[in-house]
């Protein structure tokens, strides 16, 4: 039981959420306008940057990123770790002390770029852990 330490604010008469109003335990909570944690794409086109004449491949760079809510309960489609589930629960208990679980990359993949250098040589450069492959809480 959480002790309410701000007597001014009166707790509504009944402690349980109103039966016909979706509460935080309802699956569709995340869909009420706030999206669940997932991967988003921000595509950087090398054509837009005017680099296509010297960058042979790829044509652009998908700067994926993770964004969205990690609200309790964390459903399996949110790719939540056990720790995130515990943190989300503890956040409910102590919202002012424990932050919510955050939406972050859970799997990264490399990106390779092929380009000409000053001496007309062709270079393939690989960068590991560069692109978000999966997001999760």
């Amino acid at each position: 039981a959480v002790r309410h330490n701000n007597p001014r604010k009166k707790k509504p008469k009944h402690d349980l959420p109103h039966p016909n109003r979706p509460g935080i335990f309802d699956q569709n909570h995340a869909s009420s306008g706030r999206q669940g944690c997932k991967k988003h794409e921000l595509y950087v086109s090398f054509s837009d940057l005017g680099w296509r004449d010297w960058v042979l491949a790829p044509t652009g760079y998908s700067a994926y990123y993770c964004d969205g809510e990690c609200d309790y309960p964390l459903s399996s489609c949110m790719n939540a770790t056990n720790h995130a589930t515990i943190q989300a629960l503890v956040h409910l208990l102590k919202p002012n002390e424990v932050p919510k679980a955050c939406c972050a990359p859970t799997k990264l993949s490399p990106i390779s770029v092929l380009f000409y250098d000053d001496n007309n040589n062709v270079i393939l450069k690989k960068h590991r852990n560069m692109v978000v492959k999966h997001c999760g809480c």
Partner: protein
Amino acid sequence: CIWGQVEGVAHSSFRRLSGREKKEMQKEILSLLGLPGRPRPHPPLRPPSSAPLFMLDLYHAVSSEDDDGPGLGFSPEVVSHAALPTLSTHTPPLGTVVSEADTVMSFVNLVEQEKDLLQPRPYWKDFRFDLTPLPQGETVTAAEFRIYKTLPVGWRANRTLHISVYEIQREKRYRDPDLALLDMQSVPTGQEGWLAFDVTSASNRWLLNPRSNLGIRLYVETEEDRSLSAGWVGLVGRRGPRSKQPFMVTFFRASQAPCRPPR
């Protein structure tokens, strides 16, 4: 986080990046992708030659492997075997050297000398590459010299040719240079396609001491040890079609985790 901030700024204030900010952002992307920036002079506007075509093939193989997961173990044959240019037709596991390479560079050969055919045998052909822009802090894990062989005219297809590649270690006036054998392959005269010779040991030496890079020398001999000119047996040189010109490709591995200086 950067893109979140950029997008956040874009959403909250709905303003476009200024010219200066765009330039800064481009520099940031170049730095993140380890790209040196637009080369000077402009890259060739002609159709890509053999090295870029090979590298593009390699890029697609590496990228598709990255999407599907890492390679399944080391297979040197893939590196020092003519199988690489057919990457797009079959997908063998790329092998550790290729899949773990941080940088792969192809070098167009700069100098090509051939022994005067009016001189006494043996005949040879020298190739020299400019390896100076080698990536700092990376070590050579494998290097190949690739030369294309067409079908020679007027040769019996089933004769065997011994093609050997040496590193030129020390040049001497009026005498043959000191040579060190790097690789040798025996191929039927009737074979056509890319031949790949392992020149890793020479590349390592050149990386450590660029001035020791005196190039490589190629010999062709029959089973009866009779020396032949490379051109006679169909080995394509710099004067051949662009898509079949010889080149060198070197695979590098970063010796330490690349740390990007904060900008």
